């Protein structure tokens, strides 16, 4: 009766008891599959099996030898850093306005948050319709009202007979998936940026005012340096979420046209599930690991620094 009471009063023991379930669960459903994925990548396991013969690094070298894989690796980098560039600029602009108080803030913020709140698979379906080959609303808008105006200065954006096939041309399809993912991640980055801005003490503001820093000057010398750490946190998150994204690319292009938008994730699905080469599929997805590890280490380093200061 009293042993658990004693336990509850001992801080260290209680901490262990309280944290243990979380750690055990994570080890079971994340640790075990992760180790298993590494094991599978070293075997010739095929679809539906959990084991295979040890083949060393064959899967990694075989995957690397495929031109589609290298294209997927390159795409993953372009996709990740392309969309993050858009996201960072957008988040910096939006967050500074959203910390202010003004009329209609609630509804504007709701519109900004929408892409993040919408289930990602469903939001992507909306874009699938926007990029439709025959009835794309982008092409109609660019081809009719916008081209009508631009017509006066002799510019013609969209040829109505042969409009751009957003998801049917290699370069356009890559631009399309980058745009959609930037659209989806931007609100999350905005929220993290707002959190960063909110954590800057008001004293700093007052001190800057007394020193005569205002407007752009204050932005450059005071706000930006203080916001840099949180911006980097948002960037690190964005890199992981984008590099590891499967849904947007899978639903929007399926990796097409002709594998032009394959990412490491969709290519590992293609090889590991559709072609049934489980071992090689695992190897392909593990090529993501160095990137994730680098991001994790950077995060730890930041947290450590934040703790010291």
């Amino acid at each position, binding site marked *: 009766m009293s042993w658990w009471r004693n336990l509850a009063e001992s801080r260290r023991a209680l901490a262990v008891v309280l944290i243990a379930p*979380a750690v055990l669960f994570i080890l079971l459903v994340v640790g075990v599959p992760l180790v298993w994925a590494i094991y599978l990548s070293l075997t010739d396991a095929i679809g539906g099996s959990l084991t295979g013969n040890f083949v060393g690094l064959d899967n990694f070298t075989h995957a690397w030898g495929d031109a589609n894989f290298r294209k997927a690796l390159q795409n993953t980098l372009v996709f990740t850093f392309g969309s993050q560039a858009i996201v960072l600029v957008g988040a910096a602009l939006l967050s500074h306005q959203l910390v202010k108080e003004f009329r209609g803030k609630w509804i504007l913020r*709701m519109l900004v948050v929408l892409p*993040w709140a919408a289930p990602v698979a469903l939001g992507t379906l909306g874009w699938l319709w*926007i990029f439709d080959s025959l009835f794309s609303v982008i092409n109609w808008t660019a081809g009719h009202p916008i081209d009508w105006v631009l017509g006066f200065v002799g510019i013609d954006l969209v040829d109505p007979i042969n409009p751009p096939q957003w998801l049917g041309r290699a370069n356009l399809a890559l631009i399309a998936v980058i745009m959609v993912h930037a659209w989806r991640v931007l609100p999350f980055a905005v929220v993290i940026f707002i959190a960063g801005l909110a954590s800057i003490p008001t004293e700093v503001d007052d001190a800057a005012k007394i020193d005569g820093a205002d407007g752009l000057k204050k932005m450059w010398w005071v706000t930006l340096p203080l916001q840099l750490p949180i911006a980097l946190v948002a960037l690190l998150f964005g890199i992981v979420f984008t590099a590891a994204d499967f849904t947007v690319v899978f639903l929007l292009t399926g990796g097409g046209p002709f594998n032009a938008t394959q990412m490491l994730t969709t290519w590992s699905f293609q090889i590991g599930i559709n072609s049934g080469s489980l071992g090689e599929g695992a190897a392909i997805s593990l090529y993501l690991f160095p990137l*994730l590890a680098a991001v994790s280490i950077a995060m730890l380093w930041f947290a450590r620094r*934040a703790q010291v200061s």
Partner: protein
Amino acid sequence: MFRRFGAYIVLVPFAVVLGFPFLWMLITTFKQDLDLYNADTTPYIYNPLQWRFWESMTTKHIEYIFTETKYVDWILNTLAVSAVVVGITLLVSLPAGYALARLSGSWGQTAGIGIFLVYLVPPTLLFLPLSPLVARLGIGNSLLALIVIYPSFTIPFATWLLMGFFKTIPQELEDAALVDGCSRLTALVRIVFPISLPGILTVVIFGVSLCVNEFIYAFTFITSSDNRTISTGVPNELIRGDVFFWQSLMFATLLPSLVLAFLYNTFLDKFIKGFTGGAFR
């Protein structure tokens, strides 16, 4: 000038671009087929079909979803999975988050970040070994598979947020309760949890949303139409080969998006507080 209207000058264009797909969904939902698949008319308005202008809008594609598809089942599946997963998550994360915030001192921070880093291990890395594993355990094609797997990303996320919330509750409050003769556990249940109710509610909302969003596990583990969640049911069953039920698809998308966006917007300030309370100040 900019000081006064800057917010609108920046926000309105962004809001238009970010919100546009949803406006387009709304317009599409009520369109007649003949109107929708006509490249010659203005797509933003409802073009009357001949003289029967009152028939230019239709709700039949919304009715289709509720009568001819298992949309309601998918919603119920999603809610059931979310409820159980969030329940498990709270049961595990509440004590862990509290312990990491209070009891464990300096290494608490490191352990907290360690748990959080697990959140960064993507499902795209884990689904390959999990897929045959789930089949072997006999829970393939069952919601049980999702219930077992989803806490793998909700627990790290929730633990991190709750740790942030608990750090914002003054230690003195608990100490006072201890002085008054409460045990540490009673103090926890009577004092700390009630105060952190808004934080817990935030975790519930964002936990549910993580479950609703999840795609790759639900896509690879669940194969029958009856057991799909909303994220996989809609793209799998409302797109048949090359045939897209666009109006129905758009409504099926719009409904959960608006509900979630409303909840997000309402709890955003709380979310921000919990997110930064943990670290990264």
